């Protein structure tokens, strides 16, 4: 005899049925579903009924499966679903996270290694440096998981052979040594953690003091005496005078494996290259924000002047944050990517004249020259961060060595580049509940 029940009663009876309680349950006779209202059901009610019926059929199907019948296949073919009994059991609200593994591949076309270049020579190699600095060797963009970065970034701090104009925030650090390049060099190594020193022989410029090359070379000797880190020797930037100045400097620094700054397309780069080869130094190949010019100069240094590959570093030019850093950044990034992907004319370590950041008015001006600007705040804090962010951006583009000036900038840039490099150990910080942090 048929027994009449309300849908909800059926659902209530069946909802507790699962594997454990299946035993002892018997379903007898017919179950008649009496849905009143026919086609005139309102949509909400129809939806509710549909839900109940589906839940019941789900229970029924589960019983079917208990009894060994592959109910899921029946459902799948009936509703045209390709797979998975889960789909059936999925309620509108997901109760468990859908498990998923994150996967990403390493870059497969970074096949070329950046050339390793060592600056400085110890007594074992005919020099008098206590330590050396090796740049390059990368097989990936800096700090990327794709390949180990073999050497950290290095900072060489600028020293000048005469007093020069400097931003106030920079000058305050050097007033006591501004007339003595050797003391200046000592100070940046001793107090400011410089890895290297750059001695700029700017007084040799005919428009400044026109110091003779021979006299300038004495300053180089003084600096080599004063510090035992590797050094960079810079000219004045005068294309007529520089080759002679750097030749003489290279001669007195024989065996010390200094970096000669620099060879460029607008001066007699052959003389600089020859000075480096004759006295065992490294050449800085300097071009101005132009990747093809960089290739051309590197090619000339290698093919025409026979500079060995392990004796070239590039300076593709640094523009300050807000003053062309976008070009400088992308130029370096393109150079590095081209090198990694196999362009042998660009596989050299890079150097940045990060000090150029101080040319930005934001770094040194007391306040904005424009009335509409918000307050710029104290310049003694603006300047160093300008130098840091300029250098940091280029470090991410692949730059290896930084020429810098402000001690705070040196410290923070070293901290962040060495953190990304992986050599800074700190206490772990739990950020799980950072929102509530008291700051």
């Amino acid at each position, binding site marked *: 005899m048929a027994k009449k029940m309300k849908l909800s009663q059926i659902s209530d009876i069946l909802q507790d049925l699962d594997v454990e309680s299946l035993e002892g349950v018997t379903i007898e006779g017919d179950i008649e579903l009496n849905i009143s209202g026919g086609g005139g059901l309102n949509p909400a009610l129809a939806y509710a009924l549909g839900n109940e019926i589906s839940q019941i059929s789900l229970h029924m199907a589960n019983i079917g499966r208990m009894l060994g019948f592959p109910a899921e296949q029946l459902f799948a073919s009936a509703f045209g679903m390709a797979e998975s009994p889960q789909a059936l059991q999925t309620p509108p*609200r*997901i*109760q468990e*996270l*859908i498990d*998923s*593994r*994150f996967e*990403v591949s390493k870059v497969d076309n970074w096949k070329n290694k950046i050339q390793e270049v060592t600056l400085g020579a110890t007594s074992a190699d005919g020099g008098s440096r206590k330590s050396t600095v090796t740049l390059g060797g990368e097989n990936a963009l800096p700090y*990327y998981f794709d390949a180990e970065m073999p050497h950290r970034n290095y900072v060489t701090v600028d020293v000048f052979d005469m007093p020069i104009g400097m931003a106030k925030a920079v000058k305050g650090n050097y007033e006591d040594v501004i007339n003595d390049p050797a003391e200046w060099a000592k100070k940046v190594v001793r107090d400011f953690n410089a890895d290297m020193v750059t001695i700029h022989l700017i007084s040799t410029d005919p428009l400044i003091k026109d110091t003779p090359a021979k006299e300038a070379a004495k300053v180089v000797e003084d600096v080599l005496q004063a510090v035992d880190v590797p050094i960079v020797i810079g000219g004045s*930037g005068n*294309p007529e005078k520089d080759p002679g100045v750097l030749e003489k400097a290279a001669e007195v620094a024989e065996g010390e494996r200094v970096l000669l700054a620099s060879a460029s397309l*607008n001066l007699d780069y052959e003389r600089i290259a020859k000075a480096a080869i004759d006295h065992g130094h490294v050449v800085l190949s300097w071009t*101005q924000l132009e990747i093809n010019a960089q290739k051309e100069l590197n090619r000339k240094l290698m093919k025409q002047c026979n500079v060995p590959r392990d004796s070239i570093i590039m300076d593709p030019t640094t*523009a300050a*944050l807000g*003053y*062309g*850093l*976008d070009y400088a950044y*992308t130029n370096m*990034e*393109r150079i590095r*990517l081209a090198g990694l992907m196999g362009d042998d004319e660009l596989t050299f370590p890079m150097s940045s004249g990060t000090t150029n950041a101080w*040319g930005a*008015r*934001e770094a040194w001006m007391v306040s*904005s020259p*424009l009335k*509409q*600007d*918000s*307050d*710029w*705040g104290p310049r003694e*804090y*603006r300047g160093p*961060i300008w130098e*840091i*962010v300029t250098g940091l*951006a280029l470090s*991410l583009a692949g730059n290896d060595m930084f020429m810098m000036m402000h001690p705070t900038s040196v410290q*923070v840039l070293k901290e*962040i580049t060495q*953190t*990304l*490099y992986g050599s*800074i*150990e700190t*206490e*772990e*910080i739990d*950020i799980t*509940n*950072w*929102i*509530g*942090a*008291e*700051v």
Partner: protein
Amino acid sequence: MKINSPLEAYKFLPATNCGECGEQTCMAFAAHLIDRSKDLTECTPILEEKFRKKYEELDALLAPEIREVVIGVGDNVANIGGDDVLYRHKLTFFNQTKFAYDVWDTMDEKDLIERVKYIQDFKKFYVGNFLTVDMVAVRSTSGDPEKFAAVVSKVVETTHLPIILCSFDPEVLKAGLEVSKDRNPLLYAANKDNWKEVADLALEYDVPVTLFAPNDLDLLKSMAKTFAEMGTEKLVLDPGTFPTGKQLRQTFNNFIKVRRAGIEGDREIAYPIMAVPFTAWMAHDDPVSASYWETVVASVFTIKYGDIMILHSTEPYAMLPELHIRDTIYTDPRKPVMVDPGMYEVGEPTADSPVLVTTNFALTYYTVESDISSNKIDCYLWAIDTEGIGVEAAVAGGQLTAAKIKKGIEESGFNLQTDTTHNTIILPGLAARLQGDVEDETGANVMIGPADSGRIPGWMEKNWPPQKK
């Protein structure tokens, strides 16, 4: 974007060359679609019903690899994501990183309003425009839903900037949503414990939501997949920003990995990424060190794939570099770097007005031009062809020489002797060494201006007009 040649896009276009998009041909329009300088909706014919299928197909093919997510409403809407490349020179990056500065629900009302207004009004003039910051993030530090709602109300009242609601407590988020739901705020955040409730909120209120899975990319992807399955792709991913040491290195690589996977076509993880440089404040007690480190972390993740970030320091020495590094990275590298060489009139110069020399590097030119014009100085500004290199570098590199200056003057058709009463040229301070050569080459008097054009007004007061000899 799933296609990369104009021809592939052209196949879907009406091919009538009607010109309604402003291009001569459909092929030219197709090229603009591929470099994303034009939008498909600019092709009015394809929007007609008969092309519906083609429109939909092409629209899907042109969709950026990283989904775009919209926060806020109206004029102050913030779009994030939408990138197609890993390196800016490959195309350009779209939708610059949005900077949200925090407020919290235990602040005094006066401080709160002042801080929100400061964030809203902060601006810095740069190459013809003002750089500004974008959003306010409200942190629940009290844990009290009512307090949170009160502060969110106050923020909504005070500013039109888009907002982020920050709490891991769904009750608190709900309270905040109730008073800001018509502003389409971003929820922060769903995590492994609260994701069900937060998902319900995101779906119920139809707002974007951040998924927070500190240093756990499997969990992050699982959550993204689950949320998408539940019906929302308005997601922002926060893989955790650990502020120091090896944890920060790991964070850096998490950002690289997530973005690389997304650009390479893993749709399940192809969402905008959030960085939280705020955490620098958990590592430093001294506010200057904390601000510095926060700026450093913000710079790293502006350069490497952060699409939105939450920051704390509103010191100008933090905000100015943050704004500039963002502009650096998001400037379209395809835009011209030079202005046409030649003589430009600033204001209404007469024969008594000064003649200033600068370079044709766009940035130099516009900086000098804005410094002069905003101070209402009438003058002739001479952009010498230095191949787009700035003054200091051009003097060092030989692109700015006396001969170049002479040539520039001759080619402009301007005659110093007859068109001015003073026969004088003012060189930039950074080109001072050229003074003698320029006098010899041009026969004009040469004065040396300041090294920074911001000082031109002061220099003019002292030095112009020149003393008669």
